[in-house]
């Protein structure tokens, strides 16, 4: 049962990404996982342990309190499990932090207000700050934020809108090109089975790809000389996200 739950969670996640690609994905896909599932995931637990042992890296735009909250949220949105590392290991929060000083600057205030409101809601409803809650209670809070069921007056706007914002950016930070600061060590692409950016595909590559045996090349688009920021500039699917900034 536990294993099935994890697989369903991941399938939902991948389905959501498949709709809009790695640039951005919006939609009502449920990707909250189970605390048991996360706890049971040995490879992911090892990765998480390594991450926690590393010295804390400074954030550029978020305050320390905001960064801690965001790390905890993305960790529940795309959690580590037996299929691999999740958003925390992909450094999705670092991607968001960096983008809030550039491409996502228009969302900076939404993060400041939304993260503070989420923590106030956790205190008001569960008697503890979000960081102090169990994984199950964190998921419960996030579900209420997602559905817009939070106590009136705590969020200045729609809590559901804030949830969608964070979810979209978490997906971008997990599955986008590592050039932008997320998808660390290509963990997002490995999770998807994406073999990487290629400027040339041989017949042998094509056969291997169709057989699901094409080895990931773990190369960013910007590792290629002919693929620079000017040629990579594309219009965003998420509204406020523009590549190449």
């Amino acid at each position, binding site marked *: *049962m536990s294993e099935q739950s994890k697989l369903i969670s991941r399938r939902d996640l991948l389905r959501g990404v498949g709709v809009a690609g790695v640039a951005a994905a919006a939609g009502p896909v449920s990707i909250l996982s189970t605390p048991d599932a996360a706890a049971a995931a040995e490879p992911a637990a090892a990765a998480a342990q390594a991450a926690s042992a590393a010295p804390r890296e400074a954030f550029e735009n978020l305050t320390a309190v905001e960064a801690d909250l965001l790390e905890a949220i993305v960790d529940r949105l795309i959690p580590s499990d037996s299929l691999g590392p999740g958003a925390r290991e992909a450094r999705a929060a670092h991607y968001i932090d960096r983008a809030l000083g550039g491409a996502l600057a228009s969302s900076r205030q939404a993060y400041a207000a939304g993260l503070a409101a989420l923590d106030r809601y956790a205190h*008001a409803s569960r008697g503890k700050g979000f960081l102090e809650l169990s994984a199950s209670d964190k998921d419960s809070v996030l*579900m209420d934020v997602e*559905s*817009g*069921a939070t106590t009136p007056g705590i969020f200045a706007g729609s809590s559901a809108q804030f949830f969608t914002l964070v979810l979209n950016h978490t997906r971008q930070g997990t599955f986008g090109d590592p050039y932008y600061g997320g998808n660390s060590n290509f963990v997002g692409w490995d999770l998807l089975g994406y073999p990487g950016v290629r400027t040339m595909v041989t017949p042998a590559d094509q056969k291997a790809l169709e057989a699901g045996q094409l080895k990931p090349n773990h190369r960013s688009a910007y590792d290629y000389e002919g693929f620079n920021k000017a040629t990579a500039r594309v219009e965003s699917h998420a509204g406020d996200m523009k590549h190449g900034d």
Partner: protein
Amino acid sequence: MRHVGGSILVALTLGVAHSVVAQTPAKIAVTSATLKEGETIPRQYTPDGRNDSPPLAWSGVPGSAKELAVICEDPDAGNPPPFVHWVVYKIPATAKGLPEALPIDAATKMPADVTGAVQGTNGFRRALYRGPAPPPGKPHHYHFVVYALDAPIAAKAGQPPLTRAELLDAIKGHIVGQGELVALYERTGPAQPEAPAGRGRGRGRGGN
């Protein structure tokens, strides 16, 4: 001719009436250690608190019952009403109630008394309990309905958890007992703005 037609009509009417009488479910008494009929639901069972599922108890389940099911619905919300907060089925007929705080994830086992019970899909499109969150303005009524069924619900492997509509369709003609507890909840303060258009999960809520 008219007389004969009238006789046929009377006979058909009696036949229908007999059928209805034969299928009238027995009355089940539904109670709770924490919910009181016609009174306000404690915050613990709403998103203003921990959003735990409330404990329920029942008595008067007919001996012919093979399984039980529970639905919590709000007829004051939903598009169309009711908005569904909770669906539980395949509850053993021997169960005397549901304990507080059923798991919010499918990976966690159900408590021993209700082993085998399955939480169906609610109005938030999740297979768990989510409590009252009505828009400020007036109290909403929350009906905790218990059904006793004379046949087990056939669940196919890999089938998504049943919605209220699917459950009611599945148990049609099999309800041998029924009862409910109605409690209220009201919120004050500013209403949340509507979720952005196109968000699948928010559509059709109509305030719950």
